[in-house]
């Protein structure tokens, strides 16, 4: 404390000067809140390996099912043409059967966040949700 007083005295700073310095340091500190706020809003890190957190099945325009990638099973949803079965196995999912006449949908396993499989005629969409570095889209 004594050294601080001597330092301030050496600099010959008056109260107005100290206030100026304080304001500048406060501004810099506030700037530091930005990244903290950003991390809070972003809800966590976006780097790292892509991990599927859920398989979402949409039918009839809304989310019909939210499936755990760790729970193997066969799940049924209804569409205008009938029943679509979605299979989850070993962390992957696919449309196992559907009234969609082949190749009316993208069959095959979905196991990457952002990937999806659609049965157009029966209005069923299977998509993989997750963090990591998901794709912004796919082209086919």
């Amino acid at each position: 404390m004594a050294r601080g007083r001597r330092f301030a005295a050496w600099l010959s700073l008056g109260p107005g000067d100290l206030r100026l310095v304080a304001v500048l340091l406060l501004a810099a500190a506030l700037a530091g809140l930005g990244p903290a706020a950003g991390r809070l809003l972003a809800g966590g890190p976006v780097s790292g390996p892509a991990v599927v957190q859920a398989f979402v099945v949409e039918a009839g325009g809304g989310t019909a099912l939210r499936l755990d990638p760790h729970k193997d099973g066969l799940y049924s949803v209804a569409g205008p043409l009938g029943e679509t079965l979605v299979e989850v196995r070993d962390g992957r999912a696919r449309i196992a059967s559907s009234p969609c006449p082949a190749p009316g949908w993208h069959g095959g396993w979905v196991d990457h966040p952002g990937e999806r499989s659609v049965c157009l005629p029966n209005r069923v969409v299977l998509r993989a949700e997750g963090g990591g570095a998901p794709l912004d889209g796919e082209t086919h």
Partner: protein
Amino acid sequence: MARLARRQAQNLRPSSPSRLAIAAALALAGAAALLAWQSGLWSRAVLAYEDRFLTASDTAYVMGTYLEITATGHGAAAAVERAIARFRELDVLFNPADPASDMARLAANPGRAVPVSPDTIAVLERADAAYRLSGGVFDLTVGPLVSLWGFGPQDIAALGTPADQRRTSPPSQSEIDAARRLVDWSAVTWDKTAGTATLARPGMTLATGGIAKGYALDEAARILREAGVRRAVIDAGGSLYLLGSKAGGEPWRIGLRHPRQDGYLGTLAVPADESVSTSGDYERYFESGGVRYHHILDPATGWPARGTIAVSVVAPDAAEADALSTALFVLGPEKGLALASSLPGVEALFVDDTGRITMTPGMEEMFVPTGNTAGGADGGNAAGDAGGQTGG
């Protein structure tokens, strides 16, 4: 601080200007440096806020495909709905299966000047440009051939019923020849001022599948932009428009589906404001006698184009990307690569029927192969074993 001030006052020492200047300068410099470093992080905070609170998303079944739009910016939700509505509007105009559409009315009135919407005139103009650019390979008048092969647009409800148009075997050569006689772009005329168009001969129909989605993507992007949307992904069944930059200025990461197996051939790192369009033989086809007959027909022969299994195009204009992906597919990797390389702003990737991947130099910068696909210094990559699994 107050105690210090009192002691200062007691000492009755005036502030030394030079030392004060040093202190203030140091403090300012420190604060400025800190702010400059933090401002990059600040802008990321703003972007994170926008992503969380100003992002809207919606989907629709339209133009025979699954449309998904995700947009960020003030007014994004309303803009997304207007963009979807525009897709529906254009679907009505361009769908030959709908008797009220411009396309159906043109086909129903051969030889007559039919009043059509400005959008139809615009599509005809774009199609004309693509026809000339591709040496006649992109030709909207392939409608009769497309219908003959069973790949014409039809009601989803008709699938599996007696009204189902899909084939299980190829048409005869004489049927193909008869349909080919109706393929004639010079027989299509239009008058922009009068707002009319004409198909000269009876039986002619226009197949808009190779350009309608691209045109609609451009329109949707225009609507979003005008509404102040800063970034968006418009996905019309695998044909994309990427508006603006991703949060953080990074390129958009787009998966390129493998044409023969699950998973991706690779990813594309696409810059801002580009469209991505892919034509492949795996989307609509039937197999007969062990041969795959797919929907991308060569107007010159009337048969499905051979030699290529997939083409992806990146271009700033979605209608151009859409038309080019079809044209380049038919042209094949050699002629197609030459044409793509000659077009400014256009990048293309080809997968030929042996699985070999070739691409324009600009596409090399964007394409990152998946897992165990081998890179090639000479511009050619092996696509990996047909029986192998892609990594991940």
